[in-house]
């Protein structure tokens, strides 16, 4: 039978904040276990949550670009369950009143742009990480309390391509906003895919399964395809799909049952009494929205408008770090196309272009812009520039490198003339020799000038200037 696939996606996204959702402990990845925790994260008796204002700001940014209606009254609820990774025995979340609801986002598909509706975006806190060994469970509470938003789509996607496009789109937007690192492999962006099949033409939804543990875009694609295959084979055989949580197994390339859903768990949600409802000031929200950073689509449009090709604009926009770097270069040069070429073709070969903003990178946009300007004005050739680049990456100034390597041609007439006058003054005998017809004297004088300029004088120009000056000194 022909089936239509129905996919809805829940995304958990860690917010980029200095401190945790409800405690002043720092948020960092890969620190020594249990080093970024305080009494609140460990739920010691008597501790109380204090809401991180910056996390709310990040959530508002995400709501704004996902076209979600922002609830001006921020409220939190308790979700009660016992689990070792949940110190309080409840998670503070927004069950009843999410900060954002009823939004949408447009995704590219092979048949054109498609609107995916977003049901809600709510704020909550992350859990600790558990490590299970043979007889022991170790718990790292560093992640406990990290600010999260959960973004829940409507079941609007119909195949793996659309699902991947949706996740990719959200990743890109959230990264550009500075809301999250969106690193799927590190777990700062996690996807749960709900997937069901129904006969083509049917309005009713089939039984869905939820796939967890998807840590790359490619895994999402192959997991969905595997699950579609698994479900359609079951349905073809007349068997029922069982509502369950499954995980994708990278090695077996299929989804594996984690747990059956025998009736849903009662989390006994109720309003969080330690956080009174907070009224967001309209001015504050408006200001956050007014100062939103440029999003990928707008940036691409801008690149097209300054003369970049569709390809260059697309490639640059896909890598925000590189694109930010490119924008910095443009502050020091008007050579948009040359600069784009260098960013797209040359830098990735020699640098980690995903982390250009990191302290380790010593290549400054100004130095690269100077080099690009040098190419344009003929100070150095494109070929020479490739020799210069490694030195710039070591942190040297463009000028210094060119001077040190003697790449720069001194073509400044005034500067050269000063050296020539000095040289002729010193070499009076050669001047006389020249006028006595000894052509060899000219070569000697050019050699002296080259020596004085450490070889950077433009030889042709030097020769003609010396000749002019000698004529002036004709006895």
């Amino acid at each position, binding site marked *: 039978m022909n089936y239509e696939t129905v996919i809805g996606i829940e995304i958990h996204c860690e917010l980029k904040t200095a401190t945790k959702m409800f405690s002043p402990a720092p948020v960092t990845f890969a620190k020594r276990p249990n080093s970024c925790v305080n*009494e609140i994260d*460990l*739920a*010691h*008796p*008597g*501790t*109380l*949550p*204090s*809401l991180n204002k910056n996390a709310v700001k990040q959530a508002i940014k995400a709501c704004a670009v996902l076209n979600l209606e922002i609830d001006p009254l921020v409220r939190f609820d*308790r979700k*009660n369950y*016992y689990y*070792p990774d949940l*110190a*309080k*025995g*409840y998670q503070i979340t927004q069950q009843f009143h999410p900060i954002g609801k009823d939004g949408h986002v447009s995704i590219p598909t092979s048949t054109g742009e498609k609107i995916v509706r977003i049901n809600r975006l709510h704020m909550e806190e992350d859990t600790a990480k558990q490590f299970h060994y043979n007889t022991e*469970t170790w718990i790292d509470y560093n992640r406990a309390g990290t600010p999260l938003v959960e973004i829940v789509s409507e079941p609007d996607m119909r195949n793996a391509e659309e699902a991947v496009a949706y996740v990719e789109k959200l990743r890109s937007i959230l990264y550009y906003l500075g809301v999250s690192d969106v690193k799927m492999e590190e777990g700062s962006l996690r996807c749960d895919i709900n997937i069901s099949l129904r006969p083509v033409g049917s309005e009713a939804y089939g039984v869905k399964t939820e796939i967890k543990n998807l840590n790359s875009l490619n895994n999402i694609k192959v997991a969905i395809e595997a699950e579609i295959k698994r479900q359609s084979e079951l349905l073809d055989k007349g068997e029922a799909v069982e509502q369950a949580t499954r995980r994708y197994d990278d090695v077996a390339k299929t989804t594996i049952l984690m747990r059956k859903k025998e009736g849903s768990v*009662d989390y*006994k949600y*109720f309003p969080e*009494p*330690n*956080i*009174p409802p907070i009224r967001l000031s309209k001015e504050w929200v408006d200001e956050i929205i007014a100062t939103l950073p440029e999003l990928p689509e707008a940036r691409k449009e801008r690149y097209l408008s300054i003369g970049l090709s569709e390809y260059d604009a697309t490639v640059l926009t896909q890598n925000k770090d590189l694109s930010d770097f490119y924008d910095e270069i443009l502050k020091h040069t008007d050579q948009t196309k040359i600069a784009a070429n260098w960013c797209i073709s040359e830098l990735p070969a020699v640098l980690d272009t995903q982390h250009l903003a990191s302290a380790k990178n010593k290549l400054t946009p100004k130095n690269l812009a100077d080099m690009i300007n040098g190419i344009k004005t003929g100070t150095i050739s494109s070929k020479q520039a490739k020799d210069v680049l490694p030195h710039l990456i070591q942190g040297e100034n463009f000028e210094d490198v060119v001077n040190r390597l003697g790449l720069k041609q001194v073509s400044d007439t005034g500067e050269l003339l000063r050296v020539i006058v000095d040289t002729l003054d010193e070499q009076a005998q050669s001047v006389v020799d020249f006028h006595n017809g000894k052509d060899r004297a000219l070569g000697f004088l050019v050699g002296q000038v080259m020596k004085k300029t450490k070889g950077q004088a433009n030889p042709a120009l030097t020769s003609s200037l010396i000749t002019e000056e000698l004529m002036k000194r004709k006895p």
Partner: protein
Amino acid sequence: MMNFTQYKAKNNPVEAVNLAVEAAMKANTKLNAVVTMVDPGEQLNRLDQYAGGKMFGIPIALKDNVNTSGVLTTAGSRILGNYVPQYDATIAEKLREAGAIVIAKSSLDEFGMGGSNLSAATGPVYNPYDLSRMSGGSSGGSAVLVASGVVPFAIGSDTGDSVRKPASYNGIVGYKPTYGRISRYGIIPYASSLDHVAFFTRNITDAAIALEVLSGRDDRDMTSLQLPVEDYASLLNPSLEGKKIGILTNVLKAITNPEIQAHFANLVARLKEQGATIVDIEMNQDLLSAILPTYYIIANAEATANHSNLDGLRFGVQKDGKEIDEVMSASRTAGFGKQIRKRFVIGSYALFVENQDKLFRKAQKVRRLIVEDLKHALSDIDGLIAPASAGVAPKLTDTSMDQLSSTYLIAENYMVMGNFSGYPSVTLPMGYCDGLPVGVNLTCKLYDEQTTLNLALAIEQATGLADQIKEVA
């Protein structure tokens, strides 16, 4: 046996503290009020830096649900029998900075859940006026340490009259300010929306000074008020000229004890003499009868979640188990008393998704109605008064009270309105029945601590019962 002013005048903290420690040790053999004695040496050594503090050199006790860094804090429960906090409660810091010296952590009903102090892991606390009677709870240890003359001040917490009721049973002042006036950060909770930090003194002037020390916005408690600390003590004014005081008639009608009625009538007469206008206020009888069940649902629902952190994994007493789930469940089973486990079951039941509408959410609605009715009752008056209990402190073994009578439902439990509403409320001595103290309760408008203290001072002057002490031999 001094008040704050006398301690300050004498200006000998070392002697005062040593006397208090000695008195505490002695009294405790009779009262069983102390969970942990705190060595004051270190605090006395550092006392100089707090010179000029409003409670400089005054020995105090803290209810054992107040976190004290490095000092055992049990909340009256076996499961925290080994818990030594890593941090101080905000009020512990504030009291230290005001120069107060903590000499004891006092007994309480387990996690503050109770009104008798019989559920404390360390056993019952005895009433200094009659050792066969209960202290009342849940802040029983703090109440009797103040009443017996050991310390002039002790911290309690009041979730459903847990300071104001024992104050009545022990002949002292029990002050519960507006919700949010005093930070709850570091107080081991019972039910967050009802928990108030409250305290005992022996007179209203000391209460005003203590409130100045304890009040103020704390960013670590989001429910703490963004209001400045006022000069309560210097603004104290007992004048009743132009003041209108309401008598909560529902409570008086529910009280059958003629001595208590007589004491109250006597007080009202004197307040009139001092210039107050007295009016009868009748609240909705059905709503008042619904206070206790409403309280049980809300308090236990919040409590069951609040205490889910007590799993024996990260702190507290851990019991063995093969799997983590077994460790958690064994630790909780062994760690909690029977009453607590019962409350958790009730709380969970009220929160089940199929029960929320008819229990938890209904209780929230009833709470709002009761608060509306109280607000209406206070709209035209400065304060509302009634006897703080229907009788004197009960015998330890007394279970005779009919829990469906209006005496119990209204007269013994109406003060919970102060927790539902967060309105400031104070109990102070009204008189004695056969040598046993009974108190009067006053409740005023939200945020209006000054009127509360002023009217309470007027009552104190009318009764002449400031600085009452009952030493135990």
